[in-house]
């Protein structure tokens, strides 16, 4: 059961178009909302005239900030002290700080009519200078929040190396990197349907990753007891970090529904989704690295200016995650990270698949490769000389890596790639004057888990089991993999176990699905709950059989003692639950890419890609491989195709998928997956996080390969058609 390549149960409905997404939920009398959005990226909001909007046939109501006096401010997700003095009103008042910021909400009989209403709005804005570059914004001059610095949070990790280290080192390499903004681009954009209930409560259907947090936030925002708010997450078409938040639009929809005493829904469209928020990444990095002549790293310095957009509520903590993962797989005696989360006139950022770790891996992995090139050493060998080899390992930035074998993962990657073959091909092409190829590596460490999770298992008299989880599948296949865990503990057919999650009225508590945490924390919680269930039932069985507990054996759904047997079902109903808070885990792996570059047009084609990931114990390899491939494709997107672009006035230029280029099936290179397996020592299940690795491993591997092909220090050179 654990380790079985079970087909996903949920696919029976999802691939046949029978899934139920928020847009499929039918609620009597439900109205559609659309937002009037700021036409400029920065300005003083002088007036919002909705009188003509309200006259549009089919429009039921239109609200600006002034029309909703009980509209609460947007709560932060994780706040590193950045929001004080920087409130984020769900509908703008005073100032607008990014293009597309909601200014008013229009509620109508359908979305067509709501957009007709939006057309009739008159928004008067006196434009202000627009800041898009975080380093320039940090320098001040124009303040997004008058009287406050544009640097919303600033942190240091580690300590600066002495001048002597930099002076005496055999080599010092310096570089600058850009992590362009990316759009989350889930197939299903954000979506919410709010039905006000007669008892003043709310039922909320929402495409989300953390329903219990949303319940808590909405209850607090509207002064309700949490049990008056029921959050239901139906099928979700992808999230990638963009659906963990309590977005301004959600608050405006709740406020409108309560005001109208009518159900109201908002289904974000692709144009809104690409415009953001959320966007991910968006970092300027400066690095300096000192090493000895053998390539042993002596000191590493990383300066981050993170562009967190117009409000720091959802994105300011992400660069801190980058900071804490700065040194990756390497034992570096001196580390200093200085990070600034800077507000700009772009859409607010949020975690995006990888959430800070891709940015960290990009910086260190590009720099290690640069070091190898400067020293004329093999890039794999430089990595070997610097790998952390003893675990647990405390980093100088404050994490404790639980376990790992980075060298083993790298060796598997080199072997699977056939590094000797590709080096020979590279030499052959150079000699023949053929198009160049390059080979690039990345060895990464990531962080997964974060916090506790709830799990419960119920035995029913009919012999079936119900597993309740506080996690929240947004496409990861929990309905299949969680029953595998429970069935494995119980020794029963997984088909007898049904998963229930994503409804706050049924699952008493929960955290959700992000940070690759579901199996590591939620799966482990279910493992513990199932183990508890057996222990409780064993007590009962001992009573029934009139034998000591120690004399009762459990096998495959039944208790046995003295040749007599009691099925677990006969002891039902029984329930056991657990809230498990394991330490964070640090999955790792090694990626290797081969690219070919058209030297005249600069076009890059990936010829080969090997991904070696170590997720600890894998419950369902089929699901994990699917997630690995998905995140690899998104990693290719970051490396070669995707990037949010703005004009000088801060208007997004990438508001359609004709302009924001996603990799498609046609762009996929041959991908080979391999694994090493280092169990998580801190959970009974042994699983670490899975699902984000490709986004972390692919961009540096591909960019390193481009640099190798062309002998370039900086493959993000503007003349190269890599994404930027």
């Amino acid at each position, binding site marked *: 059961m654990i380790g079985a390549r079970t087909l996903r149960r949920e696919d029976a409905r999802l691939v046949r178009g029978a899934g139920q997404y928020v847009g499929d939920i039918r609620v009597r009398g439900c109205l559609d909302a659309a937002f009037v959005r700021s036409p400029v990226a920065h300005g003083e909001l002088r007036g919002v005239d909705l009188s003509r909007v309200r006259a549009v046939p089919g429009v039921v109501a239109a609200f600006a900030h002034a029309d909703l006096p009980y509209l609460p401010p947007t709560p932060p997700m994780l706040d590193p002290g950045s929001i004080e003095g920087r409130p984020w009103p769900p509908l703008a008042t005073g100032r607008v700080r990014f293009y597309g910021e909601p200014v008013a909400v229009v509620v109508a009989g359908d*979305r*067509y009519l709501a*957009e007709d209403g939006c*057309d009739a709005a008159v928004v008067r804005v006196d434009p202000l200078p627009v800041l898009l570059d975080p380093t320039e914004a940090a320098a001040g001059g124009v303040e997004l929040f008058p009287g406050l610095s544009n640097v919303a949070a600033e942190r240091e990790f580690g300590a600066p190396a002495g001048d002597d280290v930099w002076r005496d080192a055999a080599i010092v390499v310096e570089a600058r990197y850009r992590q362009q903004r990316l759009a989350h681009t889930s197939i299903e954009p954000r979506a919410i349907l709010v039905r006000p209930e007669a008892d003043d409560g709310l039922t909320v259907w929402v495409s989300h990753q953390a329903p219990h947090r949303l319940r808590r936030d909405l209850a607090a925002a509207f002064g309700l007891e949490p049990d008056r708010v029921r959050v239901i997450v139906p099928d979700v078409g992808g999230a990638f970090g963009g659906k963990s938040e309590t977005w301004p639009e959600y608050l405006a929809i709740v406020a409108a529904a309560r005001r109208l005493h009518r159900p109201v829904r908002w289904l974000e*469209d692709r*144009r809104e989704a690409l415009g953001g928020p959320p966007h991910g990444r968006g970092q300027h990095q400066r690095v300096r690295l000192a090493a000895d002549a053998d390539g042993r790293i002596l000191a590493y310095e990383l300066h981050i200016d993170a562009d967190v957009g117009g409000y720091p509520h959802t994105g300011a903590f992400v660069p801190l995650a980058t900071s804490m993962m700065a040194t990756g797989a390497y034992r570096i005696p001196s580390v200093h990270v200085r990070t600034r989360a800077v507000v700009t006139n772009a859409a607010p950022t949020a975690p995006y698949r990888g959430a800070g770790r891709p940015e960290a891996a990009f910086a260190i992995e590009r720099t290690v490769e640069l070091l190898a090139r400067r020293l004329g050493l093999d890039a794999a060998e430089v990595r070997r000389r610097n790998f952390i080899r003893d675990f647990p390992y405390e980093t100088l930035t404050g994490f404790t890596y639980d376990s790992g074998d980075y060298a083993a993962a790298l060796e598997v990657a080199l072997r699977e790639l056939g590094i000797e073959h590709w080096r020979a091909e590279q030499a052959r092409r150079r000699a023949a004057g053929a198009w160049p190829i390059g080979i690039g590596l990345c060895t990464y460490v990531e962080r997964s888990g974060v916090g506790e999770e709830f799990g419960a298992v119920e035995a029913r008299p009919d012999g079936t089991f119900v597993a309740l989880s506080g996690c929240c599948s947004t496409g990861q296949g929990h309905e299949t993999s969680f029953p595998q865990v429970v069935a494995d503990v119980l020794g029963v057919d997984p088909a007898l176990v049904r998963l229930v999650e994503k409804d706050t009225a049924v699952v008493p508590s929960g955290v959700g699905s992000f940070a690759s945490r579901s199996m590591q924390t939620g799966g482990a919680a279910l493992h513990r709950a199932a183990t508890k269930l057996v222990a409780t039932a064993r007590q009962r069985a001992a009573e029934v059989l009139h034998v000591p507990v120690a004399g009762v054996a459990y096998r495959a759904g039944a208790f046995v003692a003295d040749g007599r047997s009691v099925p677990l079902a006969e002891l039902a109903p029984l329930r056991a639950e657990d809230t498990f808070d394991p330490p964070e885990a640090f999955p790792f792996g090694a990626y290797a890419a081969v690219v070919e570059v058209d030297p005249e047009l600069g*076009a890059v084609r990936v010829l080969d890609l090997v991904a070696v990931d170590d997720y600890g114990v894998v419950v369902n390899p089929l699901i994990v491989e699917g997630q690995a491939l998905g995140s690899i494709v998104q990693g290719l997107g970051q490396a070669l195709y995707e990037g949010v672009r703005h004009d000088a006035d801060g208007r997004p230029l990438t508001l*359609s998928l*004709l302009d924001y280029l996603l990799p*498609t099936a046609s762009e996929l290179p041959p991908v080979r997956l391999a694994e090493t397996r280092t169990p998580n020592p801190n959970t009974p299940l042994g699983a670490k996080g899975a699902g984000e690795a490709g986004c972390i491993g692919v961009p540096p591997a591909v960019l390193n390969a481009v640099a190798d092909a062309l002998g370039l220090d900086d493959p993000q050179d503007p003349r190269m058609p890599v994404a930027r």
Partner: protein
Amino acid sequence: MKPAPFEYVAARSAAEVLDALAGGGTRVLAGGQSLVLEMNARAARPARLVDINRVPGFDRLEVVGEELRIGPLVRHRAFESGRVGGPLGSLLHRVARHIAHPPIRARGTMLGSLAYAHPAAEWPAVAVALDARMELASAEGNRIVPAADFCTGPFTTVRAAGELLLAVHLPLLPPATAVGFVEHRRTQASFATLAALAAVTVVGGRVTAARIGLVNAADRPVRAAAAERALTGGPFDDAAIAGAAATLEHPAGVLVRRALGQARDGD
């Protein structure tokens, strides 16, 4: 992304189409692969759409004399499927495979693309390079416009609001014509960054006619006239190809060199 209100007319005949167009504020709906996107973004707000998908005969694709006549409902896909033979068919086939992706090619039309005049669209450059004749119809009658005069800038043509692009007449290429088409773009389905097409007629070892078109190289489709002149009259060899490419700036020269190489090598 919902369109503003509009009136919808499903025309059953050319006359009904022209009637609707004569009323003003009307756009023609053929494949809808560009127009509907614009309408959904409310960048286009036509008062009325006249849908030509039910007009009998509009999907006709036929050789008339020395020309291929293409009607307004001939989809991109028709040129992928090998219905048109000879060097012209071969060129149209190569070009069609570069247009967006199969679902779009199944709906979108060649004439729609020509009338829309997107600077990165492939067909306008084909029409210009091959000296196509564009047949415009209106309630006042029909007129023929040479392709070179048809497109006047990004998204603009000489077509008047009351006119329908009724047909395009592409001259058949002589049998001894080799064709090539090379496109550069970021992903398989994205717009052309730049593309070049070549149709080179070689008789008795000498180039008797060279047609080279460029996509997205200017504010409208253009011919690489200097490259055509450089190639004409001599042998179709490496030196001639290099010489033709050298008349163009980078990277247009690269694409023209590759398109000519593809034509010569027949791959």
